[in-house]
């Protein structure tokens, strides 16, 4: 996946442009020869207006354009933020354009460390670093296309390599922010759920280890000492990382470096990047504190069973500290029922239904250590504090656990068999 996140403001803040102007492409003022253009395209949906306003306040596209100024491209190239209708960021070869979706900004904010949540990653580095890292990834696709670069390996891995390699060319602070931001995105977000081996992308964890390996094999592995000292990169892989880094470096020198203005590159490398002003820090903190842990949950029965009754154990929005067991929800045959909006990153559920003359139950096996035994009332409606010490009339059943995809705000459990 490609992601968009809130953009951090950079110290080289440019003049503010009106929020409501029609999309028009701007040039970075410091390099008239650059063919890189950018634009913040107003969204159609009202709900993305705040995101649209926020990304402009951080001026990422302005700064990225300037960062790309040493690149001598054969034609004009543009970067836009835009409402896409899906969560992604992509390079469009037909338009020579990188598109950062507002949907992705929100998704990245949701998955970034929450306020008060213990994490070795900060909200800022995940959002800022993750955004810049993904933009550099899309830039990787862009240069592969525009410069007709020969790629023998998988292009998604090549784009990751370009992102990490370029990040390592910055000063230490920026290199750390981007590499660590990428690392979090790969491991926590892209690494969520079962791996899809058929996909053209590597799994989240593969991408995580790939990027750590290049960082480890580069000229400054000490920048990420805390990760390597923890053993995040297995020794067997680490042993070959210098070779892997040299492979990437050699490929860069042969296929991209000839298109870079060395003098301009030195000027760009000498600047400070990704420094937040106090106002931008405050804006980030505001987003970190925004409610992000709720999700709407629905259940659909598109299976042969009938008369399905559904129970769940969740944390209510109005009482997020306590787990409660709720039932029964009647799920229509060949239909869906909107259960409600809840809090948290996981739910537990249990269901019963009829198949012909038989009663069918969906409960967790006793061997499932992630499951939760809870008291319910077998026939009456109930809303009970989570407990496996049942009162008269109640029975214990084993609820199944379901981890909520942190990037999603609407979830549906489908019964199809």
């Amino acid at each position, binding site marked *: 996946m490609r992601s968009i996140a809130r953009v951090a403001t950079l110290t080289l803040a440019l003049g503010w442009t009106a929020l409501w102007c029609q999309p028009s492409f701007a040039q970075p003022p410091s390099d008239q020869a650059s063919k890189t253009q950018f634009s913040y395209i107003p969204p159609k949906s009202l709900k993305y207006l705040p995101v649209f306003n926020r990304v402009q306040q951080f001026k990422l596209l302005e700064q990225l354009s300037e960062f790309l100024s040493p690149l001598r491209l054969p034609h004009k190239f543009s970067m836009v933020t835009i409402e896409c209708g899906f969560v992604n960021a992509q390079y469009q070869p037909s338009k020579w354009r990188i598109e950062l979706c507002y949907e992705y900004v929100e998704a990245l904010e949701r998955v970034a460390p929450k306020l008060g949540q213990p994490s070795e990653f900060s909200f800022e580095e995940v959002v800022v670093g993750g955004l810049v890292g993904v933009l550099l990834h899309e830039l990787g696709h862009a240069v*592969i296309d525009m410069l*007709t*670069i*020969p*790629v*023998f*390996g*998988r*292009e998604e*891995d*090549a784009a990751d*390599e*370009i992102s990490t390699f370029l990040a390592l060319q910055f000063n230490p602070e920026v290199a750390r922010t981007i590499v660590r931001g990428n690392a979090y995105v790969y491991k926590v977000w892209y690494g969520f759920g079962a*791996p899809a*081996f*058929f*996909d*053209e992308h*590597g*799994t989240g*964890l*593969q991408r*995580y*280890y*790939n990027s750590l*390996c290049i960082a480890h094999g580069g000229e400054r592995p000490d920048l990420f000492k805390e990760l390597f000292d923890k053993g995040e*990169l*297995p020794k*067997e*892989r680490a042993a*070959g990382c210098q070779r*892997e880094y040299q*492979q*990437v470096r*050699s*490929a860069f020198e*042969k*296929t991209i470096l000839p298109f870079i203005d060395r003098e301009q590159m030195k000027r760009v490398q000498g600047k400070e990047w990704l420094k937040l002003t106090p106002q931008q820090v405050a804006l980030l903190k505001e987003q970190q504190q925004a409610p992000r842990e709720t999700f709407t949950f629905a259940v659909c029965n598109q299976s042969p069973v009938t008369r399905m009754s559904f129970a769940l154990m969740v944390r209510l929005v109005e009482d997020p500290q306590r787990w409660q067991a709720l039932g029964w929800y009647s799920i229509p045959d060949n239909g869906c029922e909107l259960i409600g909006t809840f809090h948290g990153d996981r739910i537990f559920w249990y269901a019963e239904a009829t198949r012909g003359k038989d009663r069918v139950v969906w409960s967790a096996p006793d061997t499932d250590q992630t499951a939760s035994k809870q008291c319910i009332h077998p026939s009456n409606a109930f809303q009970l504090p989570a407990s496996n010490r049942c009162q008269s009339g109640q029975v214990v059943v084993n609820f199944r656990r379901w981890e909520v995809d942190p990037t999603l705000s609407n979830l549906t459990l489908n019964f199809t068999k």
Partner: protein
Amino acid sequence: MSVSVKSAVVLASIYLAAHATAAIAQPPPAGQSSPPAAQSSQIEVAYVQPGNRNFQPIYDRVKNRKVLEELQQFLAPLRLPRKLTVKIDQCGALSRPYRPQEPVTICYELIDQIEKVAAKGDPKMRQTMIAGAFIQVVVYQVAHAMFDILQVPVWGRAGDAADRLAALVMLQFGEDLALRTIRGSTAFFLASKKTWTGSAFADADSPEEQRYYNYLCIAFGGAPISFDFLVSGNEPVLPLPRARRCYWEYQQVRMAFNLRIMPFVDPDLLVKIRSADWLLPGDVR
């Protein structure tokens, strides 16, 4: 088209013939040319006597059939800046990763493993799996050597790069061979797949199942009619979201090959190699 692939295909066909219950040498039909006698002077070959006596039968088979000498013939059009040694050896592991300035090594252990896995599977697929997997290993290892010797810039993971080049090459020998080698090699990947979790994903080699889809994608992208069975039915073998991009994946590897490897191929000798009929039924040397 890479000559290294042809050599590997012949290599496998000879190896396959060695396992057949009856193999009868037959002259090529009239009107078809035999492979040219010229061998690559830049490719040196060696069959290393295994210390493990269990591998002796494999050693005897491959040596008697001169599989590496055939490889030399097929690599003849390659103009390498230095010599390359290809050997079959006991490795102490299933594979010995290629390293610059070192020989390409095919391990007896892997040949043994291929045979064992194939023996457990569908008997009808046994020969195909042995041939396909063997070809894949040879071409894959030679691909790594080519990247090094020809100083090819490699973007993406090196193992995936060698896989994609190997798959490209496998498609250059006509439909029948493409189907057999791709089917055989991918069947071996699938039969060998393990469960991957957590830090296992740190491995520089890609999961077997991922390699399986990579090969299928290049195959479908390069020969969509021959491999249309991969995308048919309600649950296609190659999921459609990936299949839709396979044409582009194939073209990308093909372009990379034409740009960075073809300049080192003697085009006239290549035509002679390509015009020869290397894989006649029952052609055993």
